[in-house]
C-alpha cells in the first residue's frame, strides 16, 4: 500500500516538475555558459537593488502591510529565479569552463542561502511564543553583557 502510494506520488512529482523543466528550457534556449553566467550576474544585480529597497523601506522605516507583501513577492521571485539558474547551470556541466568565467557553485549556494535566511527573517512562520522564548534567551545574554 505504502509502496503503491510512493509510486503514485513519484509519478505526480515527475509530471509536476516537467513543466518547470520546459519553462527553464524556454527561458534559456542557449546552452552557452557565457549566457548562463551573464544571467546569473543580472540576478545578482537585481538582488542588490532589492537589498537597497529593503534597507530603506523595511529597516529605516516602519514597514506597512503593503511593504510586507511586496517584499515577500520580490524575495520569493528572486529565490525562485536563483534556484532555476543554479539547476540549469548544474545541468550544463563543465565546471572548469564556468569557473573560468568567474562562477562558483559554492558562492552561488551561499548567495541563495542568504536570501532564504532573509525570507525567514521577515516571513518565517514560527509561533510568536516560540520567538518570544528565544528573544528572552537573547535578552538574558544581553543582561550578562551589562553585568560584566
Amino acid at each position, binding site marked *: 500500500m505504502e509502496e503503491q502510494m510512493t509510486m503514485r506520488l513519484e509519478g505526480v512529482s515527475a509530471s509536476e516538475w516537467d513543466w518547470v523543466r520546459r519553462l527553464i528550457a524556454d527561458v534559456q534556449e542557449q546552452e552557452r555558459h557565457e549566457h548562463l553566467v551573464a544571467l546569473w550576474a543580472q540576478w545578482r544585480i537585481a538582488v542588490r537593488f532589492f*537589498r537597497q529597497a529593503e534597507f*530603506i523601506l523595511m529597516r*529605516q522605516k516602519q514597514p506597512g502591510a503593503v511593504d510586507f507583501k511586496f517584499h515577500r513577492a520580490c524575495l520569493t521571485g528572486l529565490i525562485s529565479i536563483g534556484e532555476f539558474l543554479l539547476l540549469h547551470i548544474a545541468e550544463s556541466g563543465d565546471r572548469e569552463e564556468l569557473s573560468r568565467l568567474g562562477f562558483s557553485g559554492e*558562492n552561488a549556494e551561499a548567495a541563495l542561502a542568504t536570501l532564504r535566511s532573509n525570507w525567514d*527573517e521577515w516571513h518565517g512562520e514560527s509561533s510568536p511564543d516560540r*520567538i518570544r522564548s*528565544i528573544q528572552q534567551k*537573547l535578552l538574558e*545574554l544581553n543582561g550578562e553583557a551589562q553585568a560584566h
Partner: protein
Amino acid sequence: MARHKLIEELHAAWYDALWATGEGADDKRKAHLILRDEACRLFDCSPSELQQALRGDFSKWCREKALPKPPQS
C-alpha cells in the same frame, strides 16, 4: 542595554552577508552561515527561528550604528 558580544557579531555578520559587495563578499556570506549555525546550537533553535527572533534588534542596531545605505553596484 549593552549587547552581548555574540549578538553584536551576529548582527555584523548578517549586515555583511546582506550588503557586502566585491571581493570577499561571498566569504562573508559563508561566514554568516557558520556563525548563525553556532548560535542556533547555543540557543537550541532553528536558523529560521533565530532570524525571526533577531530581526527587530538587527534593524535597531542598523539605525544605532547609522549604517550607510547599501550600494547598488
